[in-house]
């Protein structure tokens, strides 16, 4: 690249970039921001709030189940808390935390972009998510919350057996939430396809990006069946349609098929980002590249793909024809392989590297242990007779909590420590962090392991009370104790992060010598992420010192600084050749407005005011139109 003849000085360029990318300060700034980092933080704190809510629900449930025939909660309250715990942790915590918070903050940084492909859509998906979360919780606050379990089987979810608005909060809330998630997933796919820094061809994408790509694709293809299922349900509940009731030629199994056609990919949607986080932390703390890199990358895509072909193993007890069960059991057996590939890739990377067991790596260690336990019990569900025994028992509860808490949340916690310095510019407190790991590790094991045993002792899911003569008491008590230890560990983590935010030692841009691009910029990163478009020649660009020095030279020379507009480069999809320089849209108030209209739309649907709903729909469309009158400056 030729050096500009009239190269303004370095400082002038930085100052100009700052001016171009600066956003409105203050509260209004947070409402109108399109900066993926600020939106990521919004996601982070919102999902933390929902995590707290879901955690309190869990503690209440565990208190009720601490002993036989407790009367802490009545059955109705218990059912609402049980349902909300599931809905919250899946739809309002894990997915928005991994995609919304981690994905939003890290994906553009890791691929060397300056923002997401559609910054305003990104803001919209956050505001929609916030709206849906509040919407669903309104029900619980009015003690009319969802009370039919997170998969809410029909006919229990019909007006006949659940006349209140409880199920409507669930159905409409999840459709609403689905809009937000779809918008986010779409944004990630396009961002990953198009905004990778020049040189980052598909085979040089970090594994975290592969994971986020797999998750986004899964969401895009899984959510519609849930949405349609819920639309059918609402049409049946509110407009008297018939999809699920036998009397009019419907079939209750239609609900289950559509639900699990979404619900199983969902499981992998929950764990895949965790895989991505693990594949980011392990190389950093072992200071070596992941071994079997292409295999691990493909495994992440494969697990998402095969995950679509195993849904019926949630329905093995419903009396489907044997040959149907067999076909799905075969897929359920083989869907294990991508995970075994990754488990051994992680462990052998640790064996081969020079691991330094700091808090993030400890959490990944715990993740591997728990993921293996949950995965092994998962294999057992592909054995049809055993599946038919343990389905709907606490054995299943144990299994998916090892997956969702052990395998999804542990990397999230590890990731919080790992990227904390990047976000705040300060280091967390190491000793406290390691102590918090031991607390959460013990707590998790103690909470969820005994559930396997009570499950085999015949304890079924979703019972609000159990009689003393069944030999379950001791296990349930230990689960409750574990739950409180776990809570202590979590509180310690967030206490640590809070304290370090203000008192932590300054970290500098790259405290752990990470391999991916987010460590190549300052901490916290500037609004424009990178003063110069980074050069990429491998999946671990930050370890290619030559390229980083090249960046420094470019910055001085003023090549690839893009300091003359609100710009970011776009590359070709497969091989990442520089293709064009995009001018990015500025901050916009319209996403909030659209989200508000949509929220009001769903509220009026809940109250069965169709006309009002249409009005708000129209307003939403008008707001969208206004949104698009503001075009990014033309180059």
């Amino acid at each position, binding site marked *: 690249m030729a050096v500009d003849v009239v190269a303004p000085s370095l400082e002038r360029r930085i100052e100009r970039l700052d001016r171009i990318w600066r956003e409105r300060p203050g509260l209004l700034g947070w409402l109108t921001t399109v900066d993926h980092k600020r939106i990521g933080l919004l996601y982070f704190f919102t999902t933390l709030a929902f995590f707290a809510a879901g955690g309190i629900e869990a503690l209440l449930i565990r208190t009720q189940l601490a002993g036989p025939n407790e009367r802490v909660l009545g059955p109705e309250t218990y059912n609402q808390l049980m349902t909300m715990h599931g809905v919250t942790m899946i739809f309002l915590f894990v997915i928005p935390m991994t995609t919304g918070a981690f994905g939003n903050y890290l994906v553009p940084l890791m691929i060397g972009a300056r923002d997401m492909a559609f910054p305003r859509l990104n803001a919209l998906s956050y505001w929609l998510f916030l709206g849906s979360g509040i919407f669903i919780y309104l029900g619980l606050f009015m003690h009319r919350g969802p009370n039919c379990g997170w998969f809410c089987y029909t006919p229990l979810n019909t007006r006949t057996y659940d006349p209140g608005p409880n199920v409507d909060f669930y159905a409409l809330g999840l459709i609403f939430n689905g809009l937000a998630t779809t918008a986010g997933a779409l944004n990630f796919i396009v961002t990953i396809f198009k905004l990778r820094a020049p040189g980052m061809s598909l085979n040089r994408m970090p594994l975290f990006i592969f994971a986020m790509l797999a998750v986004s694709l899964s969401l895009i293809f899984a959510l*519609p069946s849930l949405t349609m299922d819920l639309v059918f349900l609402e049409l049946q509940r509110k407009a008297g*349609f*018939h999809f699920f009731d036998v009397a009019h*030629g419907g079939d209750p199994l*239609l609900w289950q098929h559509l639900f699990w056609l979404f619900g199983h990919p969902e499981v992998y949607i929950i764990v895949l980002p965790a895989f991505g986080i693990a594949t980011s932390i392990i190389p950093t703390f072992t200071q070596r590249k992941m071994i079997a890199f292409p295999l691990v990358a493909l495994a992440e895509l494969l697990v998402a793909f095969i995950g679509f072909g195993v849904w019926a193993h949630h329905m093995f007890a419903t009396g489907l024809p044997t040959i149907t069960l067999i076909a799905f059991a075969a897929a359920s057996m083989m869907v294990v392989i991508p995970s075994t590939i990754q488990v051994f890739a992680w462990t052998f990377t640790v064996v081969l590297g020079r691991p330094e067991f700091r808090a993030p790596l400890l959490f990944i260690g715990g993740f591997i242990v728990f993921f293996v336990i949950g995965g092994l019990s998962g294999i057992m569900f592909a054995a049809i007779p055993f599946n038919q025994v343990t389905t709907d028992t606490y054995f299943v509860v144990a299994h998916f909590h090892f997956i969702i808490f052990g395998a999804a949340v542990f990397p999230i916690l590890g990731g919080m420590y790992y990227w904390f310095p990047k976000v705040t510019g300060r280091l967390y407190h190491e000793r406290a962090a390691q102590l918090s790991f031991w607390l959460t590790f013990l707590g998790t094991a103690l909470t969820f392991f005994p559930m396997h045993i009570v499950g085999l002792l015949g304890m079924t899911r979703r019972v609000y009370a159990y009689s003393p003569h069944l030999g379950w008491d001791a296990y349930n008590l230990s689960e409750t104790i574990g739950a409180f230890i776990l809570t202590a560990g979590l509180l310690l983590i967030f206490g640590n992060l809070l304290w370090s935010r203000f008192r932590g030692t300054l970290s500098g841009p790259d405290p752990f010598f990470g391999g991916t691009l987010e460590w190549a910029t300052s901490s916290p990163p500037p609004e424009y992420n990178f003063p110069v478009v980074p050069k990429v020649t491998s999946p671990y660009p930050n370890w290619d010192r030559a390229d980083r020095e090249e960046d420094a030279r470019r910055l001085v020379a003023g090549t690839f600084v893009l300091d003359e507009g609100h710009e970011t480069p776009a590359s070709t999809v497969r091989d990442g050749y520089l293709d064009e320089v995009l001018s990015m849209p500025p901050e916009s108030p319209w996403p909030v407005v659209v989200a508000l209209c949509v929220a009001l739309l769903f509220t009026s649907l809940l109250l069965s005011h169709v006309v009002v709903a249409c009005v708000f729909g129209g307003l939403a469309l008008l707001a969208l139109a206004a949104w698009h009158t503001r*075009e990014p400056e*033309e180059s």
Partner: protein
Amino acid sequence: MSAEAARLDRGRIARPNGWWGIAVFVATEATLFGTIIGSYFFLRFQVPQWPPAGVPDPKVLVPLVLTAALVATSIPVQIAYSAARRDRLGVARLALLLALVVQAGYLGIQIRLFIGDLDKFSPNQSAYASIYFTLLGGHHFHVLIGILLEAWLLLRLITGLTRYRLVALQATVFYWHFVNLLAVAVVLTQVSPAL
């Protein structure tokens, strides 16, 4: 505009973000209709008589003709895009307007038919009626969205063409090709009992 932008003398070779965005959107929409059509046949297999007694078999000719008309509008929208790319704004506007008129007519007639069906049999009677009206309603809604997009674009094109609007046009055209493809799948499902 920046030096690098200038240095990219050759035009863009990859498709723009807007195109990818609409492509992913179309993928999820297609899945949505996949589940509706899948549910249609799943329910169809649950009952011996489909449509149930007292519900007339769906008309065949009219829907097929209408669909043909709708599918034909793929041509003018495509023309509109290629004309706009060559800065022939007038042609683009005209082609878009033509498509808009045809599509609006299609939607009008379809809604008349829809209401007519509602008089004949209500979705509260049977699973058949429920899925039938859901399928058609969903499809008509997508046509409506497409029409709104076009109307919006026409309004924007009055004040001239920008790169941003060109991408928007490209995306809308892609969406319309999808909706037309969808129309075929939907109509075939709709008339399947009468075949």
